[in-house]
């Protein structure tokens, strides 16, 4: 494994992946996720409840973005050039920074890049950064609602709605 770890340490830095097509956030997927974590908050289920808080659709719980970023992390782990042994990957840490909650109707692109690679003996700590961005002005125009959207000012089309930082531990015995 040590040789693999050494090769990986050289291959990983600067790598970047993106979803092959935009992710369309749907009310049903949010409801499914909210139900799976046992949430009962009305704004995670009802567009009316979300609208009363200034959102144009059902809003997503804080960890929902993992549904999207996990897909891109899987692309990284499945990259044939890297030949990562999935049995030797652990999720070390996770952090989300959100300008606002994701919202049904969002059309997002997701890019994930390898930010840091630290070698610890026979294992690697791989720091990744995933950015979820709204696609195009059309998505912003679609937000028109009677209620003033919350954080409209903060919604610059160029900046990510959510940034997710994940550290993967590669090469160690799982658990």
């Amino acid at each position, binding site marked *: 494994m040590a040789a693999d770890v050494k090769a990986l340490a050289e291959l990983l830095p600067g790598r970047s992946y993106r979803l092959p097509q935009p992710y369309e956030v749907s009310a049903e997927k949010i409801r499914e996720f909210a139900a799976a974590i046992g949430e009962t908050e009305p704004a995670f289920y009802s567009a009316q409840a979300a609208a009363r808080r200034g959102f144009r659709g059902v*809003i997503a719980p804080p960890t929902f973005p993992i549904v999207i970023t996990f897909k891109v992390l899987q692309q990284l782990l499945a990259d044939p050039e890297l030949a990562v042994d999935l049995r030797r990957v652990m999720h070390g840490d996770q952090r989300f920074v959100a300008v606002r909650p994701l919202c049904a109707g969002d059309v997002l692109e997701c890019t994930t890049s390898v930010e840091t690679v630290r070698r610890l003996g026979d294992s690697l700590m791989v720091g990744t950064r995933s950015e979820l961005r709204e696609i195009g002005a059309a998505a912003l125009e679609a937000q028109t609602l009677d209620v003033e959207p919350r954080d409209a000012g903060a919604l610059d089309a160029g900046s990510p709605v959510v940034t997710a930082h994940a550290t993967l531990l590669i090469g160690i015995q799982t658990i």
Partner: protein
Amino acid sequence: MSRHNDRVAAEPALAALTEDQELPDQIFTVTRADLVRYAGASGDFNPIHYSDRIARAAGLAGVVAHGMYTMALAARAVNAWVTDPAAVVELGVRFTKPIVVPDNETGVDVVVGGVVKSITDDTMQLALNVVSNGQKVLGQARAIVRRNESTE
């Protein structure tokens, strides 16, 4: 949805929280059925979250909860405390200890405690203490929430 014994306490208003204030423990029960449901909803089908055989081959005592499921429970606690589902601007954890989920009806409890660490004009930082079977399962767990609650 059967959520068995989850006990989510009613909370004081966000604006009323003060520095160093301890937040009431939120207690969640995790069963194998919850892990199956979470696997489907999240897309994380790592077999250590449903197969004892594979979990043991990986050196675990048995099937373990997804770290992200535990993180989601921490977020539920935050949502319960601050009563604003859109308040979380930052949430971070380290996965320090896997939670073994027994193959029975009662499952295992996860207790999320919290304390208000600091308050600014706009935000408030919460330190989270996430424990199962008397052991801390998440490290450096913290949330930053908005104070200007979105209301009707």
